[in-house]
């Protein structure tokens, strides 16, 4: 937790120094469509920094979950700030569609568990406590 906070602070400092010395490219000033959508004009400078940190967070989460680092970059670049925000804190609780192939055992397990706790009554060899 502490090291993660330190890391964030360091990244923040590096970003700030980067921005303060970086000479603005010709069309730096355009308010992007993403930003227009979020009506962020009032807090634009602050948000873009935080958004950058969040992107890096989610990229690391993808890599930790087995995504190739190069693809992780491309995947992060494709997501909107709002999508990044959504993934940041709930990547493991959001639905991850996987399908029925290879999961049949899991279906059976679910049914067996439901049977054991007495929600369903499918398998005659299971005697739930409620019976």
């Amino acid at each position, binding site marked *: 937790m502490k090291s993660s906070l330190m890391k964030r602070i360091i990244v923040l400092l590096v970003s700030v120094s980067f921005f303060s010395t970086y000479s603005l490219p010709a069309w730096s000033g355009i308010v992007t469509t993403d930003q227009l959508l979020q009506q962020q004009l*009032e807090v634009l400078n602050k948000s873009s920094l935080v958004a950058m940190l969040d992107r890096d967070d989610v990229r690391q989460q993808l890599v930790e979950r087995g995504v190739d680092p190069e693809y992780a970059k491309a995947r992060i670049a494709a997501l909107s700030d709002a999508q990044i925000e959504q993934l940041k804190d709930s990547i493991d609780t959001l639905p991850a569609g996987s399908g029925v192939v290879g999961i049949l055992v899991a279906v059976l397990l679910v049914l067996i568990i439901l049977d054991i706790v007495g929600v369903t009554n499918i398998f005659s060899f299971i005697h739930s406590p409620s019976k």
Partner: protein
Amino acid sequence: MMAVVMRRACLAGTLCATLLVAACAPYQAQETNPSLPVEPFRELAETPFFPQDKYQCGPASLAMVLNAAGAGVSPQQLQPLVYLPGNKGSLQAEMLAAASHYGYLAVPVPATLDSLLQELSDGRPVLVLQNLGVAALPLWHYAVVIGYDLEQRIFYLRSGRDRRKVYSFGRFLKTWSRAGNWAMVVVEPGEVPLSATATAYLQAATALERQHNPAAALRAYAAATRRWPDQPLLWAAAGNAAYALERFADAEAAYREALSLQPGAAAIMNNLALALAAQGCTPTALAVLDCAIRHAPANTVLKNTLIEINMLTKGAGNCRDFACTLPDTGTRP
């Protein structure tokens, strides 16, 4: 799938009658009658089919709708873009984002039966998320709805390893509603799905900008402004895409259209000022910026733009004047 397992279990089990009442009871009445005019029967039989590998319903379903829209892409190519090995599945946000890698738009479909039928009736297969389990123990599954029959009350799906899975209305709608009625369609930039809302379409098209594909984004925004001409944000988005293509006169025209619909929008004035400055119209650009600063005096973006424009070589280009709509000072502190 669960019902099949249950039915088999029923045959083997000893408490079949009880089970049928408890678990296989008729589904509760749901809104299953369309209120919009759609074809009574539709099956998009030409939709390609990719049988899924283990945990790969995401890449397989996405490949089906992308190919149906015209992109030549295989599930294997999509796997590194949407599959999350640690979670053994694909997330909805990434399913929406991945089409942009191929220059296509993934547009969310409103969570209603009407919208689902409308898209199918209009010829677009619909990628859906289903929960084949129960709320407490979900089994998330992506599949592609390719048709329906209103009289027989059935849906046709490309699902898992089934090329043509037939679902009753009730059973499909139950698995779909347990997944929040989530659905999306894939279209070429320039095509606007019938069921789309302006905001959902705009969000979908911004994905093309993030892929540094402003030409495709501009086609999408231009089509959107024809469909929803009174939405200032769509005009501003079209302006931004034109600006990125260095088509500054087109950008200017689009920003002006946006401002005619939303006169006080400082962010759009900021962009208009830059489009004017890029054409050498420094005096007009400064007038626009002055107007923007009156609307949002504390804004740092506007101040930076002012510095930037002042640094550019001043021009006296022949541009249309800009009439500033002053903020209503009576309501401001």
